[in-house]
């Protein structure tokens, strides 16, 4: 029977297709491992003079970078790590709650038409390139947000992080955190929204039928379902905040201290922005030093993600 023969032919093609596809899937996974290993090796290789090279030359490089404030690599990278984590964490804290709020608003509160419009608005926000955020942050937000920070410094100044006087212009960690929050907010929102919208109807109905209010329904049936997705979206956002260069560079007045005075200028700097600021004028050893800081950022990102992973694993068991 001819249909039988055909079926046999089909089987074979299907099988090869299966194998090839599986091969590509595995290859893609491995390629990512390889790419990342290559990046790590590259960083290590380029940063090697820091470890294996002439230490007095390294010290001189660091001194030239810091105007003599730091004398070795660790003194240099320490405040940078602090600043990077501070800025990114603040941005994530600001963005996370608002993002989850908007995602819920779109998925569960807004009427359908409004939700559709809002979704596109959020997607659009996600799509605004970071150089534009840099321009906007540096030229529009900094003067606009000044009075607000002044108010905060005046009335909440007793909280150490809000200690005044607020810098004018407000090229501070606080302002940068706001801009980064705006940048990562749509990423978290967009992914969370998609997941919340997929939360199973059945369980939501079960919650409502038990007499849950809308918020309780969300707590019972939506958030548990979306939790891991929201966390991984947040990690995506955090990653971007940790690595964002231009916006920080164009807005922040940097400094190399371990200070949490968010409203004052010249307190902190992020690793990524620091590389961008120093790279153009750096010599070979300078570039090595900068790449060394990049390696440290790489390790931080690794640790942050590792810890986040452990936390969610625990939570989901």
């Amino acid at each position, binding site marked *: 029977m001819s249909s039988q023969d055909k079926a046999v032919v089909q089987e074979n093609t299907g099988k090869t297709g299966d194998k090839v596809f599986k091969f590509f899937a595995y290859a893609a996974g491995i390629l990512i491992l390889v790419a990342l290993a290559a990046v790590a090796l590259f960083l290590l290789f380029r940063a090697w003079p820091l470890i294996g090279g002439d230490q007095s030359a390294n010290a001189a490089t660091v001194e030239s970078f810091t105007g003599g404030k730091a004398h070795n690599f660790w003194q240099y990278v320490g405040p940078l790590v602090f600043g990077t984590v501070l800025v990114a964490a603040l941005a994530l804290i600001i963005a996370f709650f608002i993002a989850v709020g908007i995602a819920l608003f779109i998925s569960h509160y807004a009427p359908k038409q409004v939700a559709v419009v809002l979704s596109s608005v959020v997607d659009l926000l996600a799509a605004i390139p970071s150089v534009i955020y840099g321009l906007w942050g540096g030229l529009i937000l900094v003067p606009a947000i000044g009075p607000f920070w002044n108010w905060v410094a005046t009335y909440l100044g007793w909280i150490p992080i809000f200690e005044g006087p607020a*810098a*004018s212009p407000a090229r501070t960690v606080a302002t940068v955190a706001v801009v980064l929050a705006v940048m990562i907010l749509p990423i978290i929102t967009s992914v969370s929204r998609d997941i919340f919208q997929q939360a199973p109807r059945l369980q939501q109905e079960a919650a409502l039928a038990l007499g849950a209010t809308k918020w309780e329904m969300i707590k019972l049936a939506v958030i548990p379902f979306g939790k891991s997705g929201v966390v991984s979206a947040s990690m995506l956002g955090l990653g971007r905040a940790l690595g964002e260069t231009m916006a920080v560079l164009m807005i922040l007045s940097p400094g190399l201290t371990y200070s949490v005075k968010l409203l004052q200028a010249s307190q902190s700097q992020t690793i990524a922005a620091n590389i961008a*600021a120093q790279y*153009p004028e750096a010599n070979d050893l300078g570039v090595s030093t900068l790449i060394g800081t990049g390696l440290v950022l790489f390790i931080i990102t690794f640790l942050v993600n590792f810890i986040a992973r452990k936390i969610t694993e625990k939570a989901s068991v």
Partner: protein
Amino acid sequence: ACGDNTSGSSNGSSSSSSAEKISGDFQGAGASSQQSAVEAWIASYQATNPDAKIAYNPVGSGAGVTTFLTGATAWAGSDASLTSEQVDKSKAVCADNTTAFDIPAYISPIAVVFNLNGISGQDKHLNMDADTVAKIFDGKITKWNDEAIAKQNPKVTLPDTAITVVHRSDKSGTTQNFVSYLKDAAPSSWTYDLSENWPNEVGQGGKGTSGVISTVKQADGTIGYADASQAGDLGTVALKVGEKYVPYSAEAASKVVDASPLDESATGENRVVVKLDHNTTADGAYPLVLVSYDIACPAYKDANTAKFVKSWLTYVVSKDGQDVAAKNAGSAPLSDTMRAKITKSIDAIKTE
């Protein structure tokens, strides 16, 4: 190519009409300070050499020199002269066992700009001596109505506004030149080591000249330093030279360069490095200047590149070239005496 702004026919002025037309793709990279000038140079140069496609990547002096030393670019722009190490290294890229040389190509006054309600404005000046400037930028003077400032500006009523110092946040030739002036002219008030990075924690930092200018504009009571062409409608400081206060100007900047000796310690052939005399008392000189160099080889592995570099640098330092830059980038044109020294080095480029 597509989208090119075809130049009008009127443009082919005399300068290099006799020279052979250059064609090909050529790359330069380096100092961002030169960017505006280089863009103007490229545009004018291409008017007479329409087949030369030139790209200048303003990645920064350090990266520019590094790239040049790999042989990837024909020339580099740099705010700093070559180190002797770099001169050594250049043997690898320059042909015939020659070493790279640097020549001044772009001289620009650095303005000390400020924004002070009711006082600053286009072409408005405050008088200050180097010591006062140093103290302000070191955070020792914190109010605009400080005695030190008021004394030098008797006709101005200064407000009780706090001073916000604005400096560069990135590694910068401008910073290096600025602090070098402070160190030379006010050694007792400015004790930091020379560096391209801002040495203290006073005030705020801005990325690039644009960052400094926009920061200064964003608040009352700010003071910063930047390439003078960007001063715009900000107030600027007239620096005390000898007994007079001199506001920045292109001519005043040229004067200090002319009045400065060449740096004898610069080792290597053909190099023209200016050792700025920040303590000059020459009449009408403005001592706060950025000198940016072009770096090239006396001999190239590729003859076409050599031909291009020679013709290009000749144009850049020519009166025409310097005028174009002065007009469009606000730089100070090279004086004829300086040009004579430079031309010798350019002429040394072997094109055969």
